[in-house]
């Protein structure tokens, strides 16, 4: 299967549809999740769902859905869910005029870390504005921010998973960067001793071709910061190819500093 962006649902817009956001607190008994789905089967068309366990052993089911019955109400759905016997609690919120917004969740957590969800375009615009405002100095600033962020990110991973494990499985963390949306990241060793090359396809930083940018300074710095933290050496990084210059992907070569 091809990799695809993870679709999540803090908001959904479908004009002329009756939308509902269903949130259920589930018991940890086997089959409780399937029981909830079964109770909803004839009532809604699920658009996007998520389930996750909580520290108290219970779980949350959250689903955006289109109601199949025009006359049904959110309260009716809630009662149906509670009757299933698997729900400890439930809430159903109806959208307004085709617009449904998640009012249950407060931000995101990934493996214990809080994340801020922002449009890639917003971040790209912000970086572009820094470069527009500060010229080449803006690029240097973005590089420095990249180094600091990459180092912090790798330090956090090392403290959580163990520095040895992170070092031994450094390539696995390329997949994490990809899953986080930084681009399709692929690392290769060589050609020189201790050197490695990182290719980023659909690099988040230059997607959309920001007008004031000349390269991916943040990503270049991020890779330097992460590599320095993981391998305990100083690195220089050159962006040898960039999508901004008509290439299919961005390519970064990291070389240990002597």
């Amino acid at each position, binding site marked *: 299967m091809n990799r695809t962006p993870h679709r999540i649902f803090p908001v959904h817009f479908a004009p002329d549809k009756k939308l509902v956001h269903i949130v259920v607190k589930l018991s940890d008994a086997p089959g409780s999740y399937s029981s909830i789905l079964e109770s909803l089967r004839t009532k809604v068309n699920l658009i996007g769902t998520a389930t996750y366990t909580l520290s108290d052993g219970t779980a949350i089911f959250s689903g955006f859905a289109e109601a199949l019955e025009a006359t049904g109400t959110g309260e009716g759905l809630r009662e149906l869910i509670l009757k299933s016997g698997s729900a400890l609690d439930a809430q159903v919120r109806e959208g307004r005029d085709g617009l449904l917004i998640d009012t249950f969740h407060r931000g995101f957590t990934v493996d214990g870390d809080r994340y801020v969800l922002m449009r890639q375009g917003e971040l790209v615009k912000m970086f572009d504005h820094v470069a527009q*405002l*500060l010229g*080449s*100095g*803006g*690029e*240097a600033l973005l590089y420095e921010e990249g180094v600091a962020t990459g180092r912090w990110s790798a330090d956090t991973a090392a403290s959580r998973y163990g520095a040895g494990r992170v070092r031994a499985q450094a390539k696995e963390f390329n997949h994490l960067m990809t899953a986080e949306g930084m681009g399709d990241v692929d690392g290769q060793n060589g050609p020189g001793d201790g050197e490695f090359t990182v290719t980023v396809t659909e690099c988040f930083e230059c997607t959309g071709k920001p007008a004031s940018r000349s390269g991916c300074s943040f990503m*270049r*710095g991020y890779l330097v910061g992460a590599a320095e933290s993981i391998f305990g050496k100083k690195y220089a990084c050159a962006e040898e190819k960039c999508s901004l210059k008509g290439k299919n992907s961005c390519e970064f070569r990291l070389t240990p500093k002597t």
Partner: protein
Amino acid sequence: MRPRLLLLILLGEFGLFVLATHVYSSLSPLSLLASGLVLESFSGFEGIAEGMNRKGRKAHAPAAIIGNSGIRHEFAFAVVPDSGKPTVVVDTELAVEDVDDTKVLKFYVKVFDVRPERAILCVSPKLSSRAAALANEYGIEVLEDEVPRRLLKLAEKAIDEKPNQEGS
């Protein structure tokens, strides 16, 4: 949009610049004025660089310096000895009104990246009070004059005041 006629006659110490431009666009005449002034300034710094090179200093105008980040920065003038570590970098900011703090910030981030011993910002007419406070905080030497061409003399004197230890 309407045609604009801009005639600039700038008498510099190193030559006469005449810039006559018909612009059929939305370009502001002020930006053209600033461009003309910047051209004059760069040209003036070239003369200063030539003079300093004759004295054995490694001066460049304009100067391109690669910073610690790997980014290439341009300055109006710089002295970069063979060691590669710049001793002095100079930039110009010319405007019709007071120069604001973003221009100081713009200069500072370049300075931060190339780490020179001295950083001089030549400003005409002058920095705003906020910009001046920022420059002071960042350790940037500021030269101000309402007449841009006078800045060249001030800059030359300032650069010569503390030639530092510049190994050739």
